[in-house]
């Protein structure tokens, strides 16, 4: 493990700004957010999660996929990617990005995402849970891969996990790192211990049990109840670090000769997400849309990728104006399931451990 001082971090960031587009955690209107960093002073390593996730840096909310010419029918793909660094990702966000990497490489690989991702350096940092964080229950509390560097704040500076050769190279190039002293590592471990004991939100079953529980919960009264207060505003999708759905549109220019094909984020909780030709909507009621979203996080995608697609960052809980809480809802489904008397083996073992 390496170590740099606070001045050492400043040198690192200043160096990176020279050679890369740098994004990092900042305070926006006094709230935690990601933003472009043009001066090392702007970077604030935040311990609580940002309002939006970092997915926009690799999967922008709107991007051009191709430019076309309607006169001669020609078209040209657009793949835009610049060397960039994202500083301040928490462990849950790093897990989320690893999931996104698998999604966009699955089936027909997504050239735009993968090109951008290949040019992105990730510098993680540790955090302290707030009342809505539940990464501990999902198993995304620590990141062992998916970053180039990971900064652990200690008393005198930062203990650093070096994740990749690229990470080691930037550390060498821009700052002076030494081997971390034992006291720094003890310092870091004490913080981790405190962190582990600070979670207020927990899931009442292990993540591995959730696909089965969700599979039995289609008829739960929970969906109608949360559906009645849901706006269908898509905020939970848009702040989620693993929601990757998008819409593709063709936008002709005013001269009706050229045009662009763009993709923009879409969200399964919006009314028109499952609307198809002829005006049929597969998930018109808001409750059905929420059920779909929650199943995507804990069941449908888990069946494909063998991992939960919720990383426990709590962003959807914080953003929801009507207080729909994915952790509470999941716990309710777990309780309903227990009442039905079908106790999953994994649930039993977990309880026995306690």
């Amino acid at each position, binding site marked *: 493990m390496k170590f740099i001082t606070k001045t050492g971090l400043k040198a690192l960031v200043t160096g990176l700004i020279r050679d890369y587009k740098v994004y990092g955690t900042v305070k*926006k*209107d006094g*709230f935690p*957010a990601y933003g472009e960093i043009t001066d090392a002073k702007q970077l604030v390593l935040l311990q609580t999660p940002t*309002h*939006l996730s970092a997915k*926009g840096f690799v999967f922008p*909310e*709107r991007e051009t996929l191709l430019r076309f010419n309607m006169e001669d029918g020609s078209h040209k793909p657009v793949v835009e990617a610049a060397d960039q660094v994202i500083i301040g990702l928490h462990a849950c966000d790093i897990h989320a990005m690893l999931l996104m990497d698998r999604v966009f490489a699955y089936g027909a690989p997504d050239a735009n995402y993968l090109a951008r991702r290949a040019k992105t350096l990730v510098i993680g940092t540790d955090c302290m849970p707030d009342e809505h964080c539940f990464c501990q229950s999902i198993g995304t509390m620590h990141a062992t891969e998916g970053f180039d560097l990971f900064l652990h704040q200690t008393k005198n500076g930062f203990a650093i996990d070096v994740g990749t050769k690229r990470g080691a190279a930037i550390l060498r190039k821009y700052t002076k790192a030494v081997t971390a002293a034992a006291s720094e590592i003890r310092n870091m471990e004490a913080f981790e211990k405190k962190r582990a004991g600070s979670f207020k939100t927990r899931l009442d079953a292990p993540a591995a049990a959730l696909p089965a529980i969700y599979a039995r919960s289609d008829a739960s009264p929970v969906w109608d109840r949360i559906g*009645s*207060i*849901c*706006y*269908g*505003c*898509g*905020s939970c999708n*848009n*702040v989620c670090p693993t929601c990757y759905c998008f819409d593709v*549109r063709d*936008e*002709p*220019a*005013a*001269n*009706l000769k050229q045009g662009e094909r763009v993709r*923009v*984020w879409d*969200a399964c909780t*919006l*009314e*028109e997400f499952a609307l198809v030709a002829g005006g049929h909507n597969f998930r018109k009621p*808001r409750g059905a849309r929420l059920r779909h979203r929650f199943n995507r996080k804990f069941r449908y995608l888990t069946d494909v990728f063998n991992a939960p697609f919720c990383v426990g960052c709590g962003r959807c809980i914080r*953003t929801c*104006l*009507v207080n729909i809480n994915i952790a509470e809802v999941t716990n309710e489904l777990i309780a309903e399931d227990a009442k039905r008397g079908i106790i999953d083996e994994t649930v039993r073992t977990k309880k026995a451990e306690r």
Partner: protein
Amino acid sequence: MVLSCENELPEILRQVDIVNFREAMTERHEDYEIAFVEGSISRKEEAHKLRKIRKKARVVVALGACSSTGGLNCLKNRFPMRYLQEEVYGRGAHKKKAFDTDTVRPIDAFIHVDYYIHGCPIPKKEFLSVLTALLMGSVPKITNHPVCVDCKLAGNICVFEKGKTCLGPVTRAGCDAICVTYGGVCWGCRGLVDDPNIGAHTETLKRYGLTADSVMDSFNLYDRCAIKRKR
């Protein structure tokens, strides 16, 4: 806002003939296929003129909040018409033709409207996208999701977090949440989404400290005509 398309105006004029734009043109003809109609209806003659336009045009597009939802003008409907006239123009004003007025209504209270460009003001981008779609013979896409979507995509901090309230969760997006981006709140100028959760938003606004009256006042600013009609 249409005249603010400085870059696109020359291109647009290569595609279409503008036959009647009284405020900008002397020439006028009565031969047209697409009619963009601005403004709400508050007089019989206006309704008559509107029906004539509907008969001629193959496509009628409501342009702007006054036309598409009645807009702010509906605030006037809180008062009896005669009271309004006498307040403004003095006693006996209701008998004079120049001061004639009636309950304000959006244009679709009188005629079938094919497409809507919402907002006060309309976003230039939306006007251009509807126009190009019509010229290409495709169906214009009218946004039907709440402003919260645009606001998240714009990277804004939610105004509720800053201790303010807004109508974003029930208001039709398409504006890029520009009001929040520039330090304001969503006032609801683009009208409600097709299926707004008014009940839930009423509860939210109360939870954030608004009284029942001020909740109604917020909705009434732009949605008075729409909410009246939904009931």
